[in-house]
């Protein structure tokens, strides 16, 4: 299998065991998600070649980077990767410009994929170039770190919770750049996070880690609606849908979107007709009605069929719903479940109170 990443790593340390095996597509953004201490950073560092004492194998783009059985280990500096650390990995004795060019200067001319000007423009780094790295804000530092990794012309970009040290506003400052990176889709990215919401807007593929193992892996849309996984019971659980801008309503400042399941009306967005957007419909924002409700302020009401009912704690139930070709999640109380006498196969109406939009 070409253009994918196959790995199997074993590492035993006091109080911690990593036993991760799996395959990831070598394109798009792969989110590696799990609680702190589950081994996701260790897995990422193993892929980069920064961990010692591991056993196993690693194949990237059909090339063997690591095989402890054959005693083969390509050192980190020959792996053509980009690695963005959680924080403070800039070289303090060099200014921003010299930091950015550190890897670029060491990349053979023919292998350089990007020119410094492109990356500087994409990440908005122009005003920082002559600044000292120690005078930058956290958000600026991470932007420089991302730019530096990109200018290394990586064949694989590894990001270890690059936004975790930033506050909400700084995160919002960086996410658009990640989305741009994603839109260009040239370099596969493995992105470690413990905050799924941070990444849901940009990830394509999701791997779930628990105590050193990868427990499930798949396209993010499918993973998010799988009620067998713990992420479906989290506060922010909900479906991720891909939709297209159908029309704008200039009178009421609204936009109609179509998705494989129907159409949705949301506040006017600044996207041309036909543009693709990603929508997040949180389970807590979906309520259920057995009959089409009469006059209501809720704009989005879609006919749906109950697929499964999964109890969450003592008082709540996660209902997965088939809406056309799509699946949505709804979170309701056990009391409502009992009053509505919900069973798999029930036909009903899903009222969507709000839709979170991701570009």
């Amino acid at each position, binding site marked *: 299998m070409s253009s994918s990443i196959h790995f199997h790593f074993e590492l035993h340390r006091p109080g911690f065991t990593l036993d991760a095996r799996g395959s990831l597509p070598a394109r798009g953004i792969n989110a590696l998600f799990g609680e702190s201490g589950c081994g996701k950073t260790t897995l990422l560092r193993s892929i980069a070649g920064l961990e010692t004492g591991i056993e196993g194998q690693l194949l990237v783009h059909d090339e063997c980077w690591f095989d402890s059985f054959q005693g083969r280990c390509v050192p980190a500096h020959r792996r053509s990767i980009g690695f963005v650390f959680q924080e403070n990995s800039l070289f303090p004795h060099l200014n921003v410009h010299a930091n950015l060019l*550190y890897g670029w200067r*060491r990349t053979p001319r023919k292998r350089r994929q990007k020119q410094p000007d492109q990356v500087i423009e994409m990440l908005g780094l122009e005003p920082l170039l002559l600044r000292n790295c120690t005078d930058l804000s956290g958000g600026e530092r991470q932007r420089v*770190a991302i730019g530096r*990794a990109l200018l290394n012309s990586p064949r694989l970009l590894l990001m270890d919770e690059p936004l975790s040290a930033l506050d909400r506003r700084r995160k919002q400052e960086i996410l658009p750049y990640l989305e741009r990176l994603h839109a260009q889709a040239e370099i596969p990215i493995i992105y470690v996070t413990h905050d799924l919401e941070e990444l849901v807007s940009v990830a394509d593929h999701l791997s779930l880690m628990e105590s050193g193992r990868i427990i499930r892996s798949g396209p993010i849309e499918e993973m998010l609606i799988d009620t067998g996984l713990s992420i479906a019971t989290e506060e922010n659980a909900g479906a991720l849908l891909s939709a297209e801008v159908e029309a704008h309503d200039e009178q009421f400042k609204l936009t109609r979107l179509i998705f494989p399941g129907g159409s949705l009306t949301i506040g006017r967005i600044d996207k041309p007709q036909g543009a693709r957007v990603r929508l997040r419909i949180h389970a807590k924002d979906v309520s259920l009605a057995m009959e089409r409700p009469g006059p209501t302020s809720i704009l989005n009401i879609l006919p749906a069929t109950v697929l499964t009912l999964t109890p969450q704690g003592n008082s709540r139930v996660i209902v997965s719903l088939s809406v056309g070709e799509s699946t949505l999640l709804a979170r309701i109380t056990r009391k409502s479940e009992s009053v509505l006498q919900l069973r798999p196969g029930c036909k009903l109406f899903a009222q969507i109170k709000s839709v979170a939009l991701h570009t």
Partner: protein
Amino acid sequence: MIPALTEADISALWVTLRLALVTTLILMLFGTPLAWWLSRSRSRWRHIVEALVAMPLVLPPTVLGFYLLIALAPDGIIGGTWLALGGQQLAFSFSGLVIGSVLYSMPFVVQPMQNAFVQIDSRVLEAASTLRASPLDRFFSLALPLSRRGLITAATLGFAHTIGEFGVVLMIGGNIPGETQVLSIAIYDHVESLQYTQAHLLSAGLLLFSFIILYLVNVTDRRSQRRDPS
């Protein structure tokens, strides 16, 4: 009467400066990789090497000098081998003094460098390794510039300490003017023969020299601190 340096004093000064300079150069050249290894290695040999390097700190210089004298003698391990390889006699020669000084001043050079290297954030080195920098490249492009202050301190301490050396030189150098007679021994000689004026002159000179060196180290230290607030 204006005290003046005798010809022997000037040649002692010259020998001392030459000795300190050569010793410092050799120590910077070989001590830097050694300090780097000590700061990064997890080998069990590390602690043994560390203890060996630190020995001159606690050992009476005469003990070191005594064993060096035996080793450097024409029938000793080092001296004999050196003669067999076509070299000149090491004991009671300038080269012998250099060997002694290198060993004696080693901890003063290696330890400040090691401390500086240890303080480098390993994340920074890891980041460089993901940016195509080989271990040697990382050493030159990051480790050295990031420990600039430690390197300056190391060189200064090594130089100053060699200038003040007495015991080891006395044991292996003898007291040959122009070849192995250094300042500290010249002072000793003056005192022995009750030439206090000459002794004062040289002693005060060394006193002033030591003060200036330490002052300069502090000043450069503070300046570079101001330059990078990290």
